[in-house]
């Protein structure tokens, strides 16, 4: 823990700055003494910047660096502004911007289809429905309960302690993962020199090799023809390995729409 604090001062400083900015921005509900938002936004932005810098820097193209910083700052800062906005309409709009930032990060993680689907579902359907409900229920703008948050200090402190522990674990115990793509490429490059001669034929007396083990979720593996995030590969995974789950998801959508219609107030029960 102490070593981590000494090795990653940017992470811990970023977390502290970010938490202070959030505490500053939270609506306190004191009438007539509304705090200016700009210092809180600057504090939170500096905290987010230092937090992301804590991951370390590598050698990468300037283009992808700029895109990552833009999208990460957009997502995290707009999320902070969403949970601290006094007006729920502005909260929903900040959430839409945070969704756009997240979709940009999806693109950087080679998930273009998912980014498009998330934008369509969230910005096109969810946000519009939320705005309808807000405008139906709160026609007079922000109410008293929007101007005053509850349990601000305990919630922010405990959540940032959780975030700090997660980041500390990520940075001090780096996960070791198997990288099939890289290893396969390395093997190919190492065996390329001696691969000119064909492999010797197995002698007829040799025992029959055991069949390869059946690996579950076989169709989800990325291959050179279907790299990660390609429509073909994603479709093979969804409609091959997870066909039953897709059917279940469709059933859940049907049940949810029936339930929403059943729960929603009826016209004969009176308007809102």
């Amino acid at each position: 823990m102490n070593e981590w604090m000494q090795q990653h001062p940017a992470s811990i400083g970023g977390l502290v700055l970010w938490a202070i900015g959030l505490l500053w921005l939270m609506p306190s509900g004191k009438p007539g003494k509304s705090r200016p938002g700009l210092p809180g936004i600057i504090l939170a932005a500096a905290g987010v910047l230092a937090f992301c810098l804590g991951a370390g820097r590598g050698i990468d193209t300037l283009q992808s660096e700029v895109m990552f910083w833009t999208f990460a700052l957009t997502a995290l800062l707009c999320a902070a502004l969403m949970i601290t906005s006094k007006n729920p309409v502005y909260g929903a709009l900040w959430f839409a911007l945070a969704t756009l930032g997240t979709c940009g990060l999806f693109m950087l993680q080679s998930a273009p289809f998912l980014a498009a689907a998330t934008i369509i579902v969230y910005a096109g359907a969810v946000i519009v429905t939320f705005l309808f409900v807000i405008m139906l229920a709160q026609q007079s703008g922000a109410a008293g309960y929007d101007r005053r948050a509850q349990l601000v200090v305990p919630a922010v402190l405990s959540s940032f302690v959780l975030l700090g522990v997660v980041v500390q674990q990520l940075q001090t115990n780096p996960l070791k993962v198997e990288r099939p793509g890289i290893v396969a490429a390395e093997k190919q490059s190492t065996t390329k020199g001696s691969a000119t001669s064909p492999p010797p034929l197995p002698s007829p007396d040799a025992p029959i090799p055991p069949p390869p083990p059946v690996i579950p979720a076989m169709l989800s593996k990325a291959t050179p023809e279907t790299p990660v995030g390609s429509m073909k590969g994603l479709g093979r995974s969804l409609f091959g390995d997870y066909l039953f789950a897709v059917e279940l998801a469709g059933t859940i959508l049907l049940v949810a729409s029936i339930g929403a219609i059943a729960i929603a107030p009826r016209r004969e029960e009176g308007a809102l």
Partner: protein
Amino acid sequence: MSEMTPLNYEELRSLMVAAGLFVLGAIGFLTRRNLILLVLSAELMLHGVSLSLVTFGKIHQNQEGQAFTIFVLTVAACEAGLALSLVLALYRQTHSLDIRLWSELREFDTPVPVMADADGPQSLPSAYDGIPLLTPAGRQPRELPRTVNADPKRPDRTPV
């Protein structure tokens, strides 16, 4: 069979941003009092989870992370629709979106939460509003004065 390599910094910072999104959603869920903002904060937490799943899929070079994220998207859409109809049903009873008005649903041995602010209604208007009525049986009772503006087509229901 294949060697294990640690995460590179791109994957690391993507996971960190995902954790940050999740924690911001959790803070919003714990601190805000507007029912709609609570649901939006839950959606923000789902964004963090989706970003983590996509990054894991990239790390392990398979499509499962993105397939799971599509299921997360489906469930999030269902959740948003159901939550909004529930919010509307709750709004019909209190004419407010304050979560504290529903503190009557707490466990019986937890203390009453402190109502610090004076604005807005302090509790539910009546504990007996909106309770479903039994089907009428036997003789129709004499109409009480409070039902003068009842719906004439539904004499068995008191106005809500």
